[in-house]
């Protein structure tokens, strides 16, 4: 094929107007830059291609500058950000491949399909690299329970996540769920997938080599989600409810076939490069593969399997139809590869070849031949990078616990908090997810981190998703630091050694300096924690413009982390069992009530600075707890987070169906600050009597606070002289809220 000039008039019938450029989300400056790059006016197809490549979603133009500040390396990292997903070494030739991604806007418009396709998309990112997906997680933020849309959104999103993951047969083992009025118009649906591969059989997207066949596999292309990538980069306005753009519908059955077919092909030596078609489908997959391989691509759209009649090049290049992949194969293997895909009833088509032209040349006979002819490298890396103006968030003053309302009774307050939307059990959600399929889920949802066994071994992979949006809202820097640290702590509480994280950075409109300031603050806080904890970011995703009518969501940098334990039999869980164990809190109790759940639920207030993380103390406490778990010195472990100490103990009691008698607090703090404060860096341990002294000694030697707070036993939770609360009553409050709320339709 020659570098044919494009007859624009013929293709479009009209020249590119400023309105058309604006509709494609390009600024005048950006359009001028485009003109400079290609040296002529683009065709409409070319304009479409540029617009998606330069969308915020694909180009990271507002975030890229800051993302570079995140540490991404370490001896455990095999592949950091830049590929479809991150790769971490698990030893013995095993690798974990994982990533988290947002599907916020589509899930608001059509919760079931939006969430389902979010799960499908993130799984493709993982198996495209050669991993069998082994666990899914989901981090969900909904609006206030009182908002008229919330119930419908919860119901659809949860059903969609389950509908997709269950069908594929990958367990959804955990996640997080928040309710907050600030998400009323912009819910967040972040899906994470973890896969397992062999370190010597990992697949990348660089299409190295000329004259190689470019192959399309999976489902046919339809007019699905055209402009999804630009939509993910735009603010919602008043008519979003009306507009309802073409949403993608997921087909998990086809994805299951695609997983199996791809893994079957990957067991051979036929693939040179492979990439899923995600946002901006055929466009971004071909540009990225060609660019990374330093080659050109000739694509013949006549060959693309099509679901609908009369599709244009523009539509095919921008379609976001699901369950599709692009591969570059070793020449001569086409037939053998095709047989595999036919066996699995999937489309297989050779749609082009790699060239030495360095150009993406797209042809479509019904539109007169070549419809796009663009320089690959420029398409890939000349996207603008903006250093947008930002202002630092001023954190609120620290709240004195003495200024916070005292509860009528500690245990009454506890029951009220445990039965609130913030702390109630998420069982109604996770029971709709198959969390046991693959028969390796050793720690199911409900504890700190979930754990799946590395199939065929005793090794365990711990997985957790964390961020506390009310902290990040008040202080993005401390909140970002806390999110990374809480994830590390949750993994540690199972006995796993934290290895690495993925992130999903959900923020408002970056063109507003205060939002950009939140972004910068969160990144800086995350970076500090990451480097101190040796917990690098290996993959991630940024979702900006989460605003409705100028109201931004709280900054929500969701962190998804994984950790490793060499023997699942050594892991700890949160359940109290038996009686007579001593409960010991490791870490300092300072009664921090600012931004706490207590403040919100009992004092109905939202003031103060969030708790601060002391990274040096975190490391000391975490390492000690992990070594106690490995040594078998503790019967149960739970980290202290939302709701504070008493909530952590109540969760442990409910998990094991064993009560506890707690000592009356006799220190300087108000009792409610002691029991409900959200100081960081703490763990509750249930310790058999004979190990208590040695653990206290060990803590003393490390200068770590360790305090005996009670002992296990019985079927209620009591604080010495008061009568106590029956576990059954607490359970009713804790388990009841969500199903009761969802029942009213």
């Amino acid at each position: 094929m020659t570098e044919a000039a494009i007859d624009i008039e013929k293709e479009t019938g009209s020249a590119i107007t400023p309105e058309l450029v604006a509709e494609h989300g390009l600024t005048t400056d950006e359009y001028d830059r485009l003109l400079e790059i290609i040296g002529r006016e683009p065709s409409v197809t070319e304009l479409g291609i540029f617009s998606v490549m330069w969308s915020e979603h694909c180009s990271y133009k507002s975030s890229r500058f800051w993302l570079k500040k995140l540490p991404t390396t370490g001896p455990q990292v095999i592949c950091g950000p830049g590929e479809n997903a991150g790769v971490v070494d698990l030893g013995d030739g095993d690798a974990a491949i994982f990533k988290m991604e947002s599907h916020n806007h589509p899930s608001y418009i059509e919760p079931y399909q939006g969430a389902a396709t979010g799960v499908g998309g993130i799984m493709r990112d993982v198996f495209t690299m050669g991993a069998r997906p082994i666990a899914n997680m989901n981090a969900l933020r909904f609006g206030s329970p009182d908002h008229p849309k919330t119930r419908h959104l919860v119901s659809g999103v949860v059903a969609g996540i389950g509908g997709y993951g269950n069908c594929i047969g990958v367990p959804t083992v955990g996640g997080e769920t928040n309710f907050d009025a600030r998400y009323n118009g912009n819910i967040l649906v972040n899906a994470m997938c973890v896969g397992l591969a062999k370190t010597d059989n990992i697949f990348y997207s660089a299409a190295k080599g000329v004259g190689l066949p470019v192959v399309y596999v999976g489902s046919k292309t339809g007019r699905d989600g055209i402009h999804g990538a630009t939509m993910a980069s735009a603010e919602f306005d008043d008519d979003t409810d009306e507009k309802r753009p073409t949403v993608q519908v997921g087909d998990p059955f086809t994805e299951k076939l695609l997983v199996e077919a791809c893994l079957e092909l990957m067991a051979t030596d036929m693939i040179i490069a492979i990439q899923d078609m995600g946002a901006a489908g055929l466009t971004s997959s071909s540009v990225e593969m060609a660019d990374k391989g330093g080659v050109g691509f000739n694509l013949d759209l006549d060959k693309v399997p099509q679901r609908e009649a009369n599709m244009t090049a523009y539509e095919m290049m921008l379609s976001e139809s699901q369950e599709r992949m692009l591969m570059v194969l070793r020449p001569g293997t086409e037939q053998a590869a095709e047989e595999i895909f036919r066996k699995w009833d999937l489309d297989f088509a050779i749609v082009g070849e790699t060239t030495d032209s360095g150009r993406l040349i797209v042809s479509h006979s019904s539109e007169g031949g070549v419809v796009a002819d663009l320089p690959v490298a420029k398409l890939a890396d000349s996207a603008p990078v903006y250093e947008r103006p930002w202002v630092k968030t001023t954190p609120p003053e620290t709240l004195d616990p003495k200024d916070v309302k005292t509860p009528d009774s500690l245990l009454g307050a506890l029951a009220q908090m445990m039965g609130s939307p913030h702390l109630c059990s998420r069982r109604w959600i996770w029971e709709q997810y198959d969390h046991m399929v693959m028969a390796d889920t050793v720690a199911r949802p409900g504890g700190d981190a979930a754990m799946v066994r590395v199939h065929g071994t005793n090794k365990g992979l711990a997985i957790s998703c964390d961020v506390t949006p009310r902290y990040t809202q008040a202080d993005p820097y401390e909140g970002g630091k806390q999110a990374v640290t809480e994830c590390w702590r949750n993994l540690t509480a199972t006995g796993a050694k934290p290895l690495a994280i993925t992130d999903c950075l959900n923020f408002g409109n970056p063109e507003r300096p205060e939002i950009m300031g939140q972004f910068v603050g969160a990144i800086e806080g995350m970076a500090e924690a990451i480097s101190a904890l040796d917990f690098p970011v290996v993959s991630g995703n940024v979702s900006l413009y989460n605003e409705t009518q100028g109201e931004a969501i709280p900054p929500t940098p969701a962190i998804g982390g994984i950790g490793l334990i060499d023997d699942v039999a050594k892991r700890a869980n949160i359940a109290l069992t038996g009686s007579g164990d001593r409960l010991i809190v490791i870490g300092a109790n300072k009664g921090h009530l600012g931004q706490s759940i207590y403040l919100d639920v009992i004092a109905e207030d939202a003031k103060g600075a969030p708790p601060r993380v002391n990274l040096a103390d975190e490391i000391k406490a975490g390492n000690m707890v992990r070594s106690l778990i490995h040594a078998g010195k503790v019967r149960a472990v739970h980290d202290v987070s939302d709701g504070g100490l008493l909530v952590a103990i109540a969760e442990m009691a409910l998990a094991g169906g064993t009560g506890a008698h707690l000592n009356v607090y006799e220190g300087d703090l108000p009792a409610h600050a002691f029991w409900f404060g959200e100081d960081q860096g703490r763990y509750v341990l249930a310790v058999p009597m004979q190990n208590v002294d040695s653990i206290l000694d060990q803590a003393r030697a490390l200068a770590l606070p360790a305090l005996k707070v009670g002992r296990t036993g019985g079927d209620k939770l009591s604080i010495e002289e008061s009568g106590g609360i029956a576990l059954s009553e607490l359970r009713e409050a804790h388990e009841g809220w969500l199903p009761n709320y969802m029942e009213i339709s």
Partner: protein
Amino acid sequence: MKTSVIVFPGSNCDRDVAVSLEQSLGTAPDMVWHGMTDMPSSDLIVLPGGFSYGDYLRCGAMAAHSPIMRDVVKMARDGVPVLGICNGFQILTETGLLPGVLIRNNSLHFICRDVSLRVERNDTLFANRYEMREVIKVPIAHHDGNYFADDDTLARVEGEGRVAFRYCGAEGQIDDQSNPNGSLNNIAGVYNDTGRILGLMPHPERLSDPALGGIDGKGMFESLLQTVH
């Protein structure tokens, strides 16, 4: 002992059950692709859980017509033991090898959790390791597990003692509270008239390993060892 696990497009518990079979019986099963037309000789055929054909149209409907099923049905009629778990149970009802149907859970939700089952018969090749009326813990994970049959069929199933397991409470009581999906008479699994074909919604392969939280499901695979040759 030679076992075969049929793999349909969309099966996803095929590996799980293969692991349990191998652990309990000592030999790995043959994994048989649904598109084949000839079954290898087998002492036991397992139809695994999952979402064959995406569970589209009706669960199990399309798989019941897969090429391999002609042979499976024939062998089953000739007395080769067949175990259908979850989706496999749905497929067996669609082929008519087992009575009744599995419709949408009455909550309309997919449900994944451990349930208690009461063993209703222990004189079969699948359940001889259990005590009569023993209460065992086995997980369920399904969207369509609500066992339904018309009055006559139900009377026949009950009358002939073909109920294999019922959902029950911790003490073995059969009541609405312990019925997770609305199944008639809390039925969780049924036998055919010879007792050599068993379909059940719960997943014994998921609690056959102490690391996963229990081994009550193991009895079903170990029972087979004793009786099938």
